[in-house]
């Protein structure tokens, strides 16, 4: 791969980044090629030592995606960041996907229970309309109690979701900093 091929490939992989950021990255690599060639290396040698433009772009994109959650933690942004980190390699798939599913399950179940509890008087009402014979006061009081505790659960889940998102961001950061390589002198 020569310099132009390398830079074109990198630029293509980075097309989702903001224009300015992409330009800056391309400039960094142009500088790298320029100095390398001034030191007598060929374009092919330099691009081979740099490694795959695809992998470099993935690392840059993953960092950029994680940054984005910190400014706005929408479900879409979180998913895109998780996806970007998983895409870095098999190792990241193993370490990220499982924990992410577990977190997702906790959040989902928490919200589901909270909302279901809050809705329980409504559910009771619907079933009382459909089967008037089944209605009793105990169920009514019980569902009102559930509704109250559901309200607490939902309030708690707001904090839990926020906390778990922060935790996830930290964990993704940590995972981005795992790299393949080895020591030279052995």
């Amino acid at each position, binding site marked *: 791969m020569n310099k132009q091929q390398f830079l074109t490939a990198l630029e293509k992989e980075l097309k989702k980044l903001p224009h300015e950021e992409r330009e800056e990255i391309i400039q960094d*690599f142009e*500088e790298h090629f320029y100095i390398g060639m001034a030191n007598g290396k060929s374009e092919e040698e330099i691009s081979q030592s740099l490694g795959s433009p695809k992998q470099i772009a993935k690392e840059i994109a993953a960092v950029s995606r994680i940054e984005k959650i910190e400014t706005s933690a929408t479900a879409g942004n979180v998913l895109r960041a998780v996806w970007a980190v998983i895409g870095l390699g098999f190792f990241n798939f193993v370490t990220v996907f499982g924990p992410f599913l577990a977190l997702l399950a906790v959040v989902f179940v928490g919200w589901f229970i909270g909302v279901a509890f809050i809705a329980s008087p409504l559910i009771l009402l619907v079933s009382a309309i459909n089967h008037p014979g089944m209605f009793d006061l105990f169920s009514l009081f019980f569902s009102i109690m559930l509704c109250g505790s559901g309200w607490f659960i939902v309030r708690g889940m707001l904090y839990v979701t926020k906390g778990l998102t922060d935790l996830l961001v930290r964990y993704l950061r940590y995972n981005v900093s795992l790299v393949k390589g*080895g020591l030279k002198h052995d």
Partner: protein
Amino acid sequence: MNTQFKKGVLELCVLALLNKQDRYGYEIVQKISEQMVISEGSVYPLLRRLKKEDYLTTYLQESNEGPPRKYYKLTEKGRNHLRNLHEEWMQFSDGVNQIIKDGGLHE
């Protein structure tokens, strides 16, 4: 040897290289690849991340040959981070060395 090791180590290397002097990207990559086999291209994403986390700043400086070069400079925050990483690394490598010694291996 082809193993997964932490870019945390790479992070320590980059910060340590900038401890005494500012350097440009190519120089940092060269210094590291004199010691280790890495995909040299991953140093640049790392430099971007360290800059985003305010451990580094950059400036352009004219060069005798060719266009100006982008230099990386350690911030005060970066210096503190370097101290922490260094400490962690020392503890880690002391631990490993002790275990190797106990295992009866010699250097």
